[in-house]
């Protein structure tokens, strides 16, 4: 199953990159998809059958504009701090705990945290995230967790778990 999914995704990427249905292109694509799928199918993520649920795709479509909006805000915020003459930052590494358990969802949460306002994931240990924060504005544990993880957790749980 995993091998098959790996082969199909590699073949799909190949055809997208070539953008033609020439028999030679398809033949070469199938050949290399077999090699890559046979060699690397094992490292493909588990539970790939979840991807067939249309509700997950719907929430992914909701998630993308939401994420891009926060990404844009993060960039404007950082850009303003950078060109401000005094560079107003208050950095530090904080520890927050997420409620997500799945591997894929935690990976994506870490990536989203890195791309959104003033936070960068330094390390993950189980469900503990160590996060470098550009401008720590509160000492309260619960508010920190809400501010860093709370934005994305509900949607990511619906997409990946």
């Amino acid at each position, binding site marked *: 199953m995993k091998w098959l999914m790996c082969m199909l995704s590699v073949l799909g990427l190949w055809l997208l990159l070539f953008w033609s249905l020439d028999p030679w292109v398809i033949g070469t694509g199938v050949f290399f998809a077999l090699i890559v799928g046979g060699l690397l199918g094992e490292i493909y993520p588990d539970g790939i059958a979840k991807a067939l649920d249309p509700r997950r795709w719907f929430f992914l479509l909701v998630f993308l504009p939401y994420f891009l909006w926060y990404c844009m805000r*993060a960039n404007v915020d*950082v850009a303003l701090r950078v060109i401000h003459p005094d560079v107003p*930052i208050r*950095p530090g590494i*904080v520890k927050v705990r997420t409620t997500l358990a799945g591997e894929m969802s935690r990976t994506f949460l870490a990536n989203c945290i890195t791309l959104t306002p003033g936070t960068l994931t330094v390390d993950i240990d189980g469900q503990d995230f*160590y996060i470098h924060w*550009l401008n720590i504005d509160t000492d309260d544990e619960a508010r920190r967790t809400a501010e860093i993880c709370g934005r994305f957790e509900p949607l990511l749980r619906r997409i990946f778990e």
Partner: protein
Amino acid sequence: MPDIAYWLIGVGLAFDLFGCIGLVRLPDVYNRAQAATKCVTLGTCVMLAGVAVAAFGESGGAIWPMGIKAIICAVFILLTSPVAAHAICRGAYLSGVPLWPGSVEDAFGPRAQDIRNEQAAAQTQRAEHEETQAS
């Protein structure tokens, strides 16, 4: 080419420039990685979106593959660049680069010490293993 493509590429260039200014102005590795990763990633993705708009806006569909490749490239960058920043920061902390003195909190210290101890233990174990094999 539609005007939107020009605007998108211009916005992307502006973000790239802010990211690089941040790379020079901010005080330590972690802050630099933050500013640079966020701004340059989004800036380049917006530029790639501009390329896609330009390619799909061209009549006849002759350069559609360019737009598709631009979108694939944007997805690659969005997925890989945070991972690279995270790896660099973890490596920097473990190799002993100190936080900027103005930092207000450092919760990673104990965990980093644990990781270093684990690595040292693994290394001594490997050395012993090699010794027994050599003799």
